[in-house]
């Protein structure tokens, strides 16, 4: 796909994911319908074959993630997408991919839970995404877009990071970001030095070494070695790939922190608070794993008060507390999933004001 760099397009967040996948050279997509992400398989069912790729509507999310595993093992750039209940089903395959050091992109357009929950926005799958949602102890790369533009940009980044580190990468969006329309610039795929997939299965000719993609590690010390290797790789990710955005930070004495759609509402509330003379800034993690711990630690050297805001009863706030200096205080305001539970800017402004007044 070649798109002029200056052309602005008015698209849905989920469509932007599909566009980015095409631009990133994704050749295989496997998915299953579930609200609020079905625009992604719908878009790719229409577009992927035009670009020589393969689209399969799988029999289940389990089928889809395992097709992703197979395509990725064979060296293809591949993607699947789903939402809460479906992402839960994919955890088996994600664990196997992590154990097999396979890249692959998984898009999670979060909806409410637990169980069937509901289809409105939620951020209650933060733990599942960032702490290794399946068995065995592993992490995946988690990117949290807060705009349609970032749905596009971070989907492309997910493919690159996943290929470079051989770790599955998740784009963790929510139904607000997935369903809303915004204008975007469909940037061309950036040039990134990618390692050759010399490990992929390809059918070995004579004299070529056998390639095996597996997670079973029965050799003496083999499993332990794998864990330490991945542990070091997660550290490397933390050192090199943390991304975040700061706003109004220069003289801030209170830092609001939020990701995804909540950060957009929080941003408006911060502007409202600034107009009232409240010295408040905004810290938005873009990578949820690796979590930008050092950035929080550094901010907390100077500013001792944080207010984490989430569409849950508090999940990311755990990582904020683990990241800031010990003498920093982390406040929390959350709205658990529930119809109509999206906070208004005024509601968050009140929380900022209340926290600010308590500091004085």
């Amino acid at each position: 796909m070649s798109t002029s760099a200056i052309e602005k397009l008015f698209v849905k967040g989920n469509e932007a994911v599909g566009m980015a996948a095409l631009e990133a050279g994704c050749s295989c997509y496997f998915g299953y319908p579930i609200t609020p992400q079905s625009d992604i398989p719908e878009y790719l069912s229409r577009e992927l074959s035009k670009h020589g790729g393969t689209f399969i509507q799988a029999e289940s999310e389990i089928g889809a993630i395992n097709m992703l595993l197979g395509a990725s093992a064979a060296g293809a750039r591949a993607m699947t997408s789903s939402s809460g209940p479906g992402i839960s089903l994919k955890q088996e395959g994600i664990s196997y991919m992590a154990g097999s050091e396979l890249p692959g992109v998984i898009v999670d357009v979060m909806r409410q839970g637990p169980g069937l929950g509901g289809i409105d926005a939620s951020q209650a799958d933060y733990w599942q995404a960032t702490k290794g949602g399946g068995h065995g102890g592993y992490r995946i790369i988690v990117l949290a877009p807060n705009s349609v533009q970032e749905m596009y940009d971070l989907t492309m980044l997910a493919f690159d990071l996943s290929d470079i580190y051989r770790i599955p990468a998740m784009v963790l969006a929510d139904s607000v970001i997935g369903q809303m329309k915004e204008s975007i610039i469909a940037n061309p795929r950036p040039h990134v030095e990618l390692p050759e997939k010399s490990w992929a299965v390809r059918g070995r000719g004579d004299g070529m070494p056998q390639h095996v993609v597996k997670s079973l590690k029965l050799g003496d010390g083999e499993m332990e070695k794998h864990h330490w290797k991945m542990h070091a790789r997660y550290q490397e990710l933390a050192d090199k790939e943390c991304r975040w955005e700061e706003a109004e930070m220069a003289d801030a004495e209170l830092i609001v922190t939020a990701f995804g759609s909540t950060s957009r509402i929080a941003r408006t509330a911060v502007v409202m608070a600034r107009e009232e003379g409240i010295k408040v800034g905004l810290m938005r993690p873009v990578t949820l794993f690796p979590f930008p711990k050092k950035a929080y630690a550094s901010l907390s050297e100077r500013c001792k008060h944080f207010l984490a805001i989430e569409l849950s009863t508090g999940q990311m706030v755990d990582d904020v507390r683990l990241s800031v200096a010990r003498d920093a205080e982390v406040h929390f305001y959350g709205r658990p999933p529930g119809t109509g539970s999206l906070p208004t800017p005024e509601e968050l402004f009140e929380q900022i004001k209340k926290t600010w007044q308590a500091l004085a």
Partner: protein
Amino acid sequence: MKQVFSRPASLKDVSTHFCPGCHHGSVHRLVGEALDEFGIRGETIGVASVGCSVFLYGYFDVDVIEAPHGRAPAVATGAKRARPDRIVFTYQGDGDLAAIGMSEIIHSANRGEDITVIFVNNTTYGMTGGQMAPTTMPGQKTSTSPYGRDVGNDGAPFKMAELLSNLEGVGFSARVALNSPKNVMQAKKMIKTAFRYQVEKKGFSFIEALAACPTNWGMNPLDANQRVGEEMIPYFPLGVFRNTANL
């Protein structure tokens, strides 16, 4: 002196972990011979399943992906769609394919994926210690059906070769056994036909191989071999159930 018999080049020169009298080794050999005879070893990707068949990569001299339990046909689908020019086969046991993996096998077959599935039916879970499988025979005692499989409680065994033969996406479906030289020769022919389907892009091919599991049946190898002929074949008849390209 002319050498008239040797290990297929598609198999490694190693000892297997299979128990004495187990038929996995025979099935491995026949698949290896088929890969050799079509000259496709270098372009083949095997997909291992979970159970006694998991060590496929240790015995076959081909590239291998290890799939989660039951998911081999989905993994093979992804690999084949990514590399349509390659020969992709799965090798699965009865618990893997007909219990936890029933959805994946049915849908891969129904899509007519251009892959070959080798299904080893020994009426029990081998690796985990002889529990009741979806193909355990009525009345058969296992470690989780200590009074014998009760069809009223557990349902009847699945006849996978017949079941899949009803799907339009399937090109070839056959059941073979390895309990006699005659049946081994016939099995070889059927396994070759299954791979011929893929080589000639004629559609999904499926082989169900009836196999002995002496260890978990509590039998010596000879008695176990005899059980295949006397009990299994009458219930799971051998033959070709679908052969759309008439190969």
